[in-house]
Protein backbone atom coordinates (compact mmCIF):
# COMPACT_ATOMS: atom_id res chain seq x y z
CA UNK A 1 0.00 0.00 0.00
CA UNK A 2 1.26 3.49 -0.81
CA UNK A 3 -0.18 5.19 2.26
CA UNK A 4 -0.68 3.35 5.53
CA UNK A 5 -2.13 4.95 8.64
CA UNK A 6 -1.80 2.90 11.80
CA UNK A 7 -3.54 3.63 15.11
CA UNK A 8 -3.37 7.44 14.86
CA UNK A 9 -5.08 9.30 17.71
CA UNK A 10 -5.22 12.94 18.74
CA UNK A 11 -6.84 14.84 21.61
CA UNK A 12 -7.37 18.54 22.28
CA UNK A 13 -7.42 19.11 26.02
CA UNK A 14 -9.45 16.11 27.17
CA UNK A 15 -11.49 15.58 24.03
CA UNK A 16 -10.32 12.91 21.62
CA UNK A 17 -10.88 14.32 18.13
CA UNK A 18 -9.24 11.53 16.13
CA UNK A 19 -9.67 7.98 17.45
CA UNK A 20 -7.47 5.08 16.50
CA UNK A 21 -7.31 5.85 12.81
CA UNK A 22 -6.45 2.87 10.57
CA UNK A 23 -6.62 2.82 6.80
CA UNK A 24 -4.50 2.45 3.69
CA UNK A 25 -4.55 3.82 0.18
CA UNK A 26 -3.03 2.61 -3.09
CA UNK A 27 -0.94 4.93 -5.27
CA UNK A 28 -2.71 7.16 -7.82
CA UNK A 29 -6.09 6.80 -6.13
CA UNK A 30 -8.31 9.28 -4.33
CA UNK A 31 -9.92 8.52 -1.01
CA UNK A 32 -12.99 10.67 -0.34
CA UNK A 33 -13.71 11.25 3.30
CA UNK A 34 -17.24 12.34 4.11
CA UNK A 35 -18.07 13.89 7.45
CA UNK A 36 -19.83 16.69 9.27
CA UNK A 37 -18.04 19.79 10.52
CA UNK A 38 -16.04 19.10 13.67
CA UNK A 39 -15.80 15.34 13.17
CA UNK A 40 -12.00 15.39 13.02
CA UNK A 41 -11.45 15.44 9.23
CA UNK A 42 -9.18 18.51 9.21
CA UNK A 43 -7.15 17.27 12.18
CA UNK A 44 -6.65 13.93 10.43
CA UNK A 45 -5.36 15.65 7.28
CA UNK A 46 -3.08 17.98 9.27
CA UNK A 47 -1.59 15.03 11.14
CA UNK A 48 -0.84 13.25 7.86
CA UNK A 49 0.63 16.51 6.46
CA UNK A 50 2.84 16.95 9.53
CA UNK A 51 1.17 20.23 10.52
CA UNK A 52 -0.19 18.64 13.71
CA UNK A 53 1.37 15.90 15.79
CA UNK A 54 -0.41 12.72 16.82
CA UNK A 55 -0.23 11.25 20.31
CA UNK A 56 0.18 7.75 19.05
CA UNK A 57 0.33 5.72 15.86
CA UNK A 58 2.43 5.70 12.72
CA UNK A 59 2.20 6.97 9.16
CA UNK A 60 3.91 5.17 6.30
CA UNK A 61 4.22 6.79 2.88
CA UNK A 62 5.69 4.70 0.09
CA UNK A 63 6.95 2.22 2.73
CA UNK A 64 8.78 4.98 4.63
CA UNK A 65 7.81 5.88 8.17
CA UNK A 66 7.14 9.64 8.09
CA UNK A 67 5.50 9.95 11.51
CA UNK A 68 8.27 12.10 12.96
CA UNK A 69 9.27 13.88 9.71
CA UNK A 70 8.79 17.64 9.51
CA UNK A 71 6.00 18.90 7.21
CA UNK A 72 8.45 20.23 4.62
CA UNK A 73 10.22 16.86 4.38
CA UNK A 74 7.11 14.72 3.80
CA UNK A 75 6.34 15.74 0.20
CA UNK A 76 2.67 15.79 1.15
CA UNK A 77 0.72 18.95 0.41
CA UNK A 78 -2.23 20.10 2.47
CA UNK A 79 -4.70 22.31 0.63
CA UNK A 80 -6.70 24.56 2.93
CA UNK A 81 -10.46 25.06 2.87
CA UNK A 82 -9.89 28.65 1.80
CA UNK A 83 -8.18 29.27 -1.52
CA UNK A 84 -5.05 30.51 0.25
CA UNK A 85 -2.73 32.20 -2.21
CA UNK A 86 0.39 34.11 -1.22
CA UNK A 87 -0.94 37.70 -1.44
CA UNK A 88 2.42 39.26 -2.35
CA UNK A 89 3.02 36.94 -5.32
CA UNK A 90 1.27 36.95 -8.69
CA UNK A 91 -0.27 33.86 -10.32
CA UNK A 92 3.03 32.80 -11.94
CA UNK A 93 5.03 33.20 -8.74
CA UNK A 94 2.38 31.43 -6.67
CA UNK A 95 2.41 28.39 -8.94
CA UNK A 96 6.21 28.45 -9.16
CA UNK A 97 6.65 28.70 -5.38
CA UNK A 98 7.53 25.06 -4.66
CA UNK A 99 9.82 24.95 -7.71
CA UNK A 100 11.74 28.02 -6.52
CA UNK A 101 12.06 26.40 -3.09
CA UNK A 102 13.56 23.33 -4.76
CA UNK A 103 15.95 25.67 -6.65
CA UNK A 104 15.10 24.33 -10.12
CA UNK A 105 16.66 26.18 -13.08
CA UNK A 106 14.62 29.22 -14.14
CA UNK A 107 14.03 27.84 -17.65
CA UNK A 108 12.57 24.61 -16.27
CA UNK A 109 10.36 26.60 -13.92
CA UNK A 110 9.02 28.78 -16.73
CA UNK A 111 8.25 25.75 -18.93
CA UNK A 112 6.55 23.84 -16.11
CA UNK A 113 4.48 26.81 -14.98
CA UNK A 114 3.42 27.62 -18.53
CA UNK A 115 2.24 24.03 -19.05
CA UNK A 116 0.40 24.12 -15.74
CA UNK A 117 -1.26 27.43 -16.63
CA UNK A 118 -2.50 25.82 -19.86
CA UNK A 119 -3.83 22.82 -17.94
CA UNK A 120 -5.59 25.12 -15.50
CA UNK A 121 -7.03 27.20 -18.35
CA UNK A 122 -5.29 30.23 -16.90
CA UNK A 123 -3.01 31.16 -19.80
CA UNK A 124 -2.46 34.91 -19.97
CA UNK A 125 -3.41 35.38 -16.30
CA UNK A 126 0.12 34.82 -15.01
CA UNK A 127 0.76 38.44 -14.05
CA UNK A 128 -2.45 38.88 -12.06
CA UNK A 129 -2.34 39.28 -8.30
CA UNK A 130 -4.56 37.03 -6.12
CA UNK A 131 -7.00 39.86 -5.38
CA UNK A 132 -7.67 40.21 -9.11
CA UNK A 133 -8.91 36.63 -9.47
CA UNK A 134 -12.34 35.04 -9.02
CA UNK A 135 -12.92 32.32 -6.41
CA UNK A 136 -12.68 29.57 -9.03
CA UNK A 137 -9.49 31.01 -10.52
CA UNK A 138 -7.91 31.27 -7.09
CA UNK A 139 -8.76 27.65 -6.37
CA UNK A 140 -7.25 26.59 -9.72
CA UNK A 141 -4.03 28.45 -8.94
CA UNK A 142 -4.02 26.78 -5.54
CA UNK A 143 -4.33 23.34 -7.21
CA UNK A 144 -1.69 24.12 -9.78
CA UNK A 145 0.75 25.28 -7.11
CA UNK A 146 0.22 22.02 -5.19
CA UNK A 147 0.34 19.65 -8.15
CA UNK A 148 3.31 21.20 -9.98
CA UNK A 149 5.72 20.08 -7.29
CA UNK A 150 4.64 16.48 -7.89
CA UNK A 151 3.71 15.66 -4.28
CA UNK A 152 3.58 12.08 -3.09
CA UNK A 153 0.25 12.78 -1.45
CA UNK A 154 -2.25 15.60 -1.85
CA UNK A 155 -4.55 16.36 1.09
CA UNK A 156 -7.59 18.41 0.16
CA UNK A 157 -9.68 19.91 2.93
CA UNK A 158 -13.11 20.77 1.49
CA UNK A 159 -11.42 22.68 -1.33
CA UNK A 160 -14.63 23.61 -3.15
CA UNK A 161 -16.69 24.51 -0.08
CA UNK A 162 -16.81 28.22 -0.87
CA UNK A 163 -17.60 27.91 -4.60
CA UNK A 164 -20.98 28.20 -6.31
CA UNK A 165 -22.41 24.96 -7.73
CA UNK A 166 -21.43 25.66 -11.35
CA UNK A 167 -17.83 26.53 -10.53
CA UNK A 168 -17.76 23.60 -8.13
CA UNK A 169 -18.74 21.17 -10.92
CA UNK A 170 -16.04 22.61 -13.19
CA UNK A 171 -13.44 22.32 -10.45
CA UNK A 172 -14.41 18.73 -9.70
CA UNK A 173 -13.87 17.81 -13.36
CA UNK A 174 -10.61 19.72 -13.48
CA UNK A 175 -9.35 17.94 -10.37
CA UNK A 176 -10.26 14.52 -11.80
CA UNK A 177 -8.42 15.35 -15.04
CA UNK A 178 -5.34 16.65 -13.28
CA UNK A 179 -5.30 13.68 -10.90
CA UNK A 180 -5.20 11.30 -13.86
CA UNK A 181 -2.69 13.38 -15.81
CA UNK A 182 -0.23 13.80 -12.94
CA UNK A 183 -0.91 10.42 -11.22
CA UNK A 184 -1.92 12.07 -7.99
CA UNK A 185 -2.61 10.13 -4.80
CA UNK A 186 -4.99 12.11 -2.65
CA UNK A 187 -7.35 12.27 0.28
CA UNK A 188 -10.34 14.46 -0.49
CA UNK A 189 -12.32 15.62 2.52
CA UNK A 190 -15.82 16.93 1.98
CA UNK A 191 -19.16 17.23 3.73
CA UNK A 192 -21.00 16.95 0.41
CA UNK A 193 -22.33 13.45 -0.26
CA UNK A 194 -22.45 13.83 -4.03
CA UNK A 195 -18.95 15.26 -4.15
CA UNK A 196 -17.62 12.39 -2.04
CA UNK A 197 -19.10 9.87 -4.46
CA UNK A 198 -17.86 11.74 -7.52
CA UNK A 199 -14.32 12.41 -6.41
CA UNK A 200 -13.30 9.24 -4.62
CA UNK A 201 -12.01 5.95 -5.95
CA UNK A 202 -12.52 4.82 -2.36
CA UNK A 203 -14.89 6.35 0.16
CA UNK A 204 -14.69 6.75 3.92
CA UNK A 205 -17.11 8.11 6.47
CA UNK A 206 -15.85 9.98 9.51
CA UNK A 207 -18.00 10.31 12.63
CA UNK A 208 -16.81 11.69 15.96
CA UNK A 209 -13.16 10.98 15.22
CA UNK A 210 -13.69 7.47 13.85
CA UNK A 211 -13.10 6.75 10.18
CA UNK A 212 -14.67 3.85 8.37
CA UNK A 213 -13.31 3.19 4.88
CA UNK A 214 -15.63 1.15 2.69
CA UNK A 215 -14.42 -1.68 0.48
CA UNK A 216 -16.56 -0.51 -2.40
CA UNK A 217 -18.88 2.32 -3.40
CA UNK A 218 -21.81 -0.14 -3.30
CA UNK A 219 -21.12 -0.90 0.35
CA UNK A 220 -21.02 2.84 1.07
CA UNK A 221 -24.28 3.42 -0.80
CA UNK A 222 -26.05 0.56 0.98
CA UNK A 223 -24.93 1.61 4.48
CA UNK A 224 -27.88 3.49 6.04
CA UNK A 225 -25.44 5.54 8.15
CA UNK A 226 -23.94 7.31 5.14
CA UNK A 227 -27.16 9.08 4.21
CA UNK A 228 -27.17 7.90 0.60
CA UNK A 229 -30.38 5.92 1.05
CA UNK A 230 -32.04 8.95 2.61
CA UNK A 231 -30.91 11.03 -0.33
CA UNK A 232 -32.31 8.51 -2.85
CA UNK A 233 -35.55 8.42 -0.90
CA UNK A 234 -35.71 12.20 -0.97
CA UNK A 235 -35.48 12.37 -4.75
CA UNK A 236 -37.89 9.45 -5.19
CA UNK A 237 -40.44 11.17 -2.96
CA UNK A 238 -39.93 14.43 -4.82
CA UNK A 239 -40.64 12.63 -8.09
CA UNK A 240 -43.81 11.03 -6.78
CA UNK A 241 -44.98 14.24 -5.12
CA UNK A 242 -44.82 12.95 -1.50
CA UNK A 243 -43.83 15.14 1.45
CA UNK A 244 -40.02 15.51 1.72
CA UNK A 245 -39.82 17.46 5.00
CA UNK A 246 -38.61 14.57 7.17
CA UNK A 247 -35.65 13.77 4.94
CA UNK A 248 -32.20 14.02 6.46
CA UNK A 249 -28.77 13.26 5.16
CA UNK A 250 -25.90 12.08 7.42
Amino acid at each position, binding site marked *: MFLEIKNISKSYKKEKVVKNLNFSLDANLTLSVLGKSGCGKTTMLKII*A*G*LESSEEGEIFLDAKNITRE*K*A*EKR*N*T*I*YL*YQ*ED*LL*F*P*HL*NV*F*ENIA*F*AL*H*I*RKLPEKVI*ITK*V*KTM*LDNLELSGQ*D*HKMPNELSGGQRQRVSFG*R*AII*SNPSLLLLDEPFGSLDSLTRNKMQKLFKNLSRKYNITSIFVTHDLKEALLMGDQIGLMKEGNLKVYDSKEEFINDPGTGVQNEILFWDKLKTGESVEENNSI
Partner: protein
Amino acid sequence: MKISKHQLGIVFFILIGVVPFFGALLYAVLYSFGIVGILNEGFTFLFWKSVFHSGDFVKSLGYSMSIALVSVILSVGGALWLAINFTRNFQSRFFSFIIYLPLAIPGIVTAFFTFQLLSKGGLFSRIFHRLGWIESASGFPDLVNDTYAIGIVLAFITLVLPFFLLLFLSVYKNENIEQLSSLAKSLGANSTQVIRRIIVPILLKKTWIVIVLYFIFLLGSYEVPLILGQEHPQMLSVLIIREIKQYDLTKISEGYAIAVMYTIMVSLAALILFLPKKKISHET
Protein backbone atom coordinates in the same frame (compact mmCIF):
# COMPACT_ATOMS: atom_id res chain seq x y z
CA MET B 1 -28.14 74.93 -4.85
CA LYS B 2 -27.61 71.83 -2.69
CA ILE B 3 -24.10 70.93 -1.53
CA SER B 4 -23.49 67.21 -1.06
CA LYS B 5 -21.59 65.79 1.92
CA HIS B 6 -18.73 64.88 -0.39
CA GLN B 7 -18.45 68.46 -1.70
CA LEU B 8 -18.69 69.80 1.86
CA GLY B 9 -15.84 67.49 2.86
CA ILE B 10 -13.69 68.81 0.01
CA VAL B 11 -14.45 72.42 1.01
CA PHE B 12 -13.41 71.69 4.62
CA PHE B 13 -10.29 69.87 3.46
CA ILE B 14 -9.30 72.87 1.33
CA LEU B 15 -10.07 75.35 4.13
CA ILE B 16 -8.41 73.40 6.95
CA GLY B 17 -5.68 71.48 5.14
CA VAL B 18 -4.72 73.11 1.86
CA VAL B 19 -5.15 76.88 2.43
CA PRO B 20 -3.07 77.12 5.67
CA PHE B 21 -0.35 74.87 4.20
CA PHE B 22 0.01 76.80 0.97
CA GLY B 23 -0.46 80.11 2.82
CA ALA B 24 2.44 79.31 5.15
CA LEU B 25 4.54 78.00 2.26
CA LEU B 26 3.88 81.15 0.22
CA TYR B 27 4.81 83.32 3.22
CA ALA B 28 8.04 81.34 3.71
CA VAL B 29 8.91 81.62 -0.01
CA LEU B 30 8.31 85.39 0.02
CA TYR B 31 10.36 85.75 3.20
CA SER B 32 13.21 83.66 1.83
CA PHE B 33 13.40 85.92 -1.27
CA GLY B 34 13.33 89.07 0.86
CA ILE B 35 9.90 90.19 -0.37
CA VAL B 36 8.39 90.23 3.14
CA GLY B 37 10.12 90.56 6.51
CA ILE B 38 11.06 93.33 8.94
CA LEU B 39 14.55 94.10 7.68
CA ASN B 40 14.17 92.82 4.09
CA GLU B 41 14.47 95.35 1.28
CA GLY B 42 13.00 93.56 -1.71
CA PHE B 43 13.56 90.58 -3.98
CA THR B 44 16.97 88.95 -3.60
CA PHE B 45 18.67 85.55 -3.97
CA LEU B 46 21.09 86.49 -1.19
CA PHE B 47 19.56 84.31 1.51
CA TRP B 48 19.35 81.23 -0.73
CA LYS B 49 22.96 81.74 -1.84
CA SER B 50 24.03 82.11 1.78
CA VAL B 51 22.28 78.87 2.76
CA PHE B 52 24.00 76.91 -0.02
CA HIS B 53 27.41 78.49 0.64
CA SER B 54 27.34 77.75 4.38
CA GLY B 55 26.63 74.08 3.64
CA ASP B 56 24.56 73.84 6.84
CA PHE B 57 21.46 72.66 5.00
CA VAL B 58 23.19 69.84 3.14
CA LYS B 59 25.03 68.69 6.30
CA SER B 60 21.88 68.88 8.34
CA LEU B 61 19.87 67.06 5.68
CA GLY B 62 22.45 64.26 5.45
CA TYR B 63 22.63 64.03 9.24
CA SER B 64 18.82 63.95 9.60
CA MET B 65 18.41 61.37 6.83
CA SER B 66 21.07 59.10 8.35
CA ILE B 67 19.47 59.27 11.81
CA ALA B 68 15.95 58.72 10.46
CA LEU B 69 17.11 55.85 8.24
CA VAL B 70 19.05 54.06 10.99
CA SER B 71 16.18 54.55 13.45
CA VAL B 72 13.56 53.23 11.01
CA ILE B 73 15.71 50.25 9.96
CA LEU B 74 16.44 49.27 13.58
CA SER B 75 12.82 49.80 14.66
CA VAL B 76 11.38 47.86 11.72
CA GLY B 77 14.00 45.11 12.13
CA GLY B 78 13.35 44.81 15.86
CA ALA B 79 9.58 44.88 15.43
CA LEU B 80 9.78 42.21 12.69
CA TRP B 81 11.91 39.99 14.90
CA LEU B 82 9.52 40.34 17.83
CA ALA B 83 6.40 39.90 15.68
CA ILE B 84 7.74 36.74 14.04
CA ASN B 85 9.18 35.09 17.14
CA PHE B 86 6.66 36.08 19.79
CA THR B 87 3.38 36.39 17.87
CA ARG B 88 1.45 34.23 20.31
CA ASN B 89 2.93 35.87 23.43
CA PHE B 90 1.67 39.28 22.31
CA GLN B 91 -1.89 37.97 22.25
CA SER B 92 -1.88 37.98 26.07
CA ARG B 93 -3.22 41.06 27.90
CA PHE B 94 -0.01 41.72 29.79
CA PHE B 95 2.18 41.87 26.66
CA SER B 96 -0.42 43.94 24.77
CA PHE B 97 -0.28 46.45 27.64
CA ILE B 98 3.50 46.54 27.46
CA ILE B 99 3.41 47.38 23.75
CA TYR B 100 0.69 50.00 24.04
CA LEU B 101 2.30 51.78 26.99
CA PRO B 102 5.20 53.47 25.11
CA LEU B 103 2.71 54.81 22.54
CA ALA B 104 1.10 56.90 25.28
CA ILE B 105 4.39 58.61 26.19
CA PRO B 106 5.08 61.87 24.27
CA GLY B 107 8.35 62.33 22.40
CA ILE B 108 9.56 65.06 24.74
CA VAL B 109 9.12 62.79 27.79
CA THR B 110 10.98 59.96 26.04
CA ALA B 111 13.79 62.41 25.24
CA PHE B 112 14.01 63.50 28.90
CA PHE B 113 13.95 59.89 30.13
CA THR B 114 16.72 59.01 27.67
CA PHE B 115 18.74 62.00 28.87
CA GLN B 116 18.22 61.06 32.53
CA LEU B 117 19.29 57.48 31.84
CA LEU B 118 22.17 57.91 29.39
CA SER B 119 23.84 61.25 30.09
CA LYS B 120 27.20 61.40 31.90
CA GLY B 121 25.40 62.42 35.08
CA GLY B 122 22.50 60.01 34.46
CA LEU B 123 21.31 56.83 36.11
CA PHE B 124 23.41 54.34 34.17
CA SER B 125 26.54 56.44 34.64
CA ARG B 126 25.92 56.43 38.42
CA ILE B 127 25.28 52.67 38.48
CA PHE B 128 28.45 52.03 36.48
CA HIS B 129 30.39 54.29 38.85
CA ARG B 130 28.93 52.54 41.92
CA LEU B 131 29.87 49.16 40.45
CA GLY B 132 33.39 50.44 39.91
CA TRP B 133 33.29 50.02 36.13
CA ILE B 134 34.15 53.72 35.57
CA GLU B 135 36.28 56.00 37.74
CA SER B 136 34.27 59.18 37.25
CA ALA B 137 31.20 60.42 35.34
CA SER B 138 33.45 61.57 32.48
CA GLY B 139 34.45 57.93 31.93
CA PHE B 140 30.89 57.09 30.85
CA PRO B 141 30.59 56.95 27.03
CA ASP B 142 28.91 59.83 25.18
CA LEU B 143 25.40 58.52 24.54
CA VAL B 144 23.51 61.83 24.49
CA ASN B 145 24.37 65.05 22.65
CA ASP B 146 26.94 62.86 20.89
CA THR B 147 28.41 62.85 17.36
CA TYR B 148 26.78 59.57 16.35
CA ALA B 149 23.33 60.57 17.66
CA ILE B 150 23.07 57.35 19.71
CA GLY B 151 20.69 59.00 22.20
CA ILE B 152 18.41 60.29 19.42
CA VAL B 153 18.35 56.90 17.69
CA LEU B 154 17.56 55.09 20.97
CA ALA B 155 14.77 57.55 21.77
CA PHE B 156 13.32 57.17 18.26
CA ILE B 157 13.44 53.38 18.55
CA THR B 158 11.62 53.54 21.90
CA LEU B 159 8.94 55.70 20.30
CA VAL B 160 8.56 53.94 16.96
CA LEU B 161 9.26 50.22 17.54
CA PRO B 162 6.09 49.54 19.56
CA PHE B 163 4.00 51.14 16.82
CA PHE B 164 5.59 48.95 14.13
CA LEU B 165 5.19 45.90 16.35
CA LEU B 166 1.46 46.55 16.70
CA LEU B 167 1.20 47.18 12.97
CA PHE B 168 3.01 43.94 12.08
CA LEU B 169 0.98 41.90 14.58
CA SER B 170 -2.21 43.26 13.09
CA VAL B 171 -1.09 42.49 9.51
CA TYR B 172 0.10 39.04 10.69
CA LYS B 173 -3.41 38.28 11.86
CA ASN B 174 -5.36 39.93 9.04
CA GLU B 175 -3.27 38.41 6.26
CA ASN B 176 -3.58 34.92 7.72
CA ILE B 177 0.19 34.60 7.87
CA GLU B 178 0.10 31.65 10.26
CA GLN B 179 -1.85 29.56 7.74
CA LEU B 180 0.25 30.84 4.83
CA SER B 181 3.37 29.76 6.72
CA SER B 182 1.96 26.26 7.26
CA LEU B 183 1.06 26.13 3.59
CA ALA B 184 4.57 27.20 2.57
CA LYS B 185 6.01 24.47 4.82
CA SER B 186 3.66 21.98 3.25
CA LEU B 187 5.02 23.08 -0.15
CA GLY B 188 8.53 22.29 1.01
CA ALA B 189 9.82 25.55 2.51
CA ASN B 190 11.92 25.32 5.66
CA SER B 191 11.55 27.79 8.56
CA THR B 192 14.12 30.24 7.17
CA GLN B 193 12.53 30.18 3.72
CA VAL B 194 9.10 30.74 5.26
CA ILE B 195 10.40 33.85 7.03
CA ARG B 196 12.39 35.11 4.04
CA ARG B 197 9.89 34.33 1.27
CA ILE B 198 6.53 34.63 3.00
CA ILE B 199 6.38 36.40 6.36
CA VAL B 200 8.80 39.30 5.86
CA PRO B 201 7.74 40.14 2.26
CA ILE B 202 4.04 40.14 3.18
CA LEU B 203 4.57 42.28 6.28
CA LEU B 204 6.78 44.77 4.44
CA LYS B 205 4.61 44.90 1.33
CA LYS B 206 1.52 45.69 3.39
CA THR B 207 3.24 48.34 5.54
CA TRP B 208 5.93 49.96 3.39
CA ILE B 209 3.99 53.20 2.91
CA VAL B 210 3.66 53.59 6.69
CA ILE B 211 7.37 52.84 7.06
CA VAL B 212 8.27 55.56 4.54
CA LEU B 213 5.86 58.01 6.22
CA TYR B 214 7.54 57.29 9.56
CA PHE B 215 10.91 57.99 7.96
CA ILE B 216 9.58 61.39 6.82
CA PHE B 217 8.10 61.97 10.28
CA LEU B 218 11.44 61.24 11.99
CA LEU B 219 13.25 63.39 9.43
CA GLY B 220 11.25 66.37 10.66
CA SER B 221 11.23 65.45 14.34
CA TYR B 222 11.97 68.36 16.70
CA GLU B 223 11.81 67.71 20.48
CA VAL B 224 13.99 64.59 20.61
CA PRO B 225 16.95 66.01 18.61
CA LEU B 226 16.58 69.34 20.44
CA ILE B 227 17.18 67.64 23.80
CA LEU B 228 19.48 64.79 22.77
CA GLY B 229 21.25 66.20 19.70
CA GLN B 230 24.65 67.87 19.38
CA GLU B 231 25.41 71.50 18.50
CA HIS B 232 26.58 70.89 14.96
CA PRO B 233 25.28 69.53 12.65
CA GLN B 234 21.72 69.55 13.90
CA MET B 235 18.66 67.80 12.62
CA LEU B 236 16.65 69.85 10.08
CA SER B 237 13.78 71.04 12.30
CA VAL B 238 16.17 72.15 15.03
CA LEU B 239 18.30 73.99 12.45
CA ILE B 240 15.25 75.72 10.92
CA ILE B 241 13.89 76.87 14.29
CA ARG B 242 17.38 78.01 15.36
CA GLU B 243 17.68 80.15 12.22
CA ILE B 244 14.18 81.60 12.46
CA LYS B 245 14.35 82.33 16.18
CA GLN B 246 17.87 83.69 16.41
CA TYR B 247 18.85 87.15 17.59
CA ASP B 248 20.23 88.23 14.18
CA LEU B 249 17.00 89.13 12.32
CA THR B 250 18.69 88.98 8.91
CA LYS B 251 19.13 85.21 9.44
CA ILE B 252 15.39 84.62 9.62
CA SER B 253 15.12 84.59 5.82
CA GLU B 254 17.77 81.87 5.65
CA GLY B 255 15.71 79.79 8.06
CA TYR B 256 12.71 80.18 5.78
CA ALA B 257 14.80 79.21 2.74
CA ILE B 258 15.76 75.95 4.49
CA ALA B 259 12.14 75.37 5.54
CA VAL B 260 10.98 75.87 1.92
CA MET B 261 13.54 73.37 0.59
CA TYR B 262 12.61 70.83 3.24
CA THR B 263 8.87 71.26 2.56
CA ILE B 264 9.34 70.85 -1.21
CA MET B 265 11.45 67.72 -0.67
CA VAL B 266 8.94 66.09 1.66
CA SER B 267 5.99 67.07 -0.57
CA LEU B 268 7.71 65.53 -3.60
CA ALA B 269 8.44 62.34 -1.63
CA ALA B 270 4.77 62.16 -0.56
CA LEU B 271 3.63 62.73 -4.14
CA ILE B 272 5.84 59.93 -5.45
CA LEU B 273 4.64 57.70 -2.64
CA PHE B 274 0.95 58.13 -3.37
CA LEU B 275 1.04 58.33 -7.16
CA PRO B 276 -0.57 55.27 -8.81
CA LYS B 277 2.08 52.72 -9.81
CA LYS B 278 2.37 50.85 -13.11
CA LYS B 279 2.09 47.07 -12.89
CA ILE B 280 5.00 44.91 -13.94
CA SER B 281 3.93 41.76 -15.74
CA HIS B 282 5.84 38.48 -15.59
CA GLU B 283 6.85 37.07 -18.96
CA THR B 284 6.33 33.38 -19.44
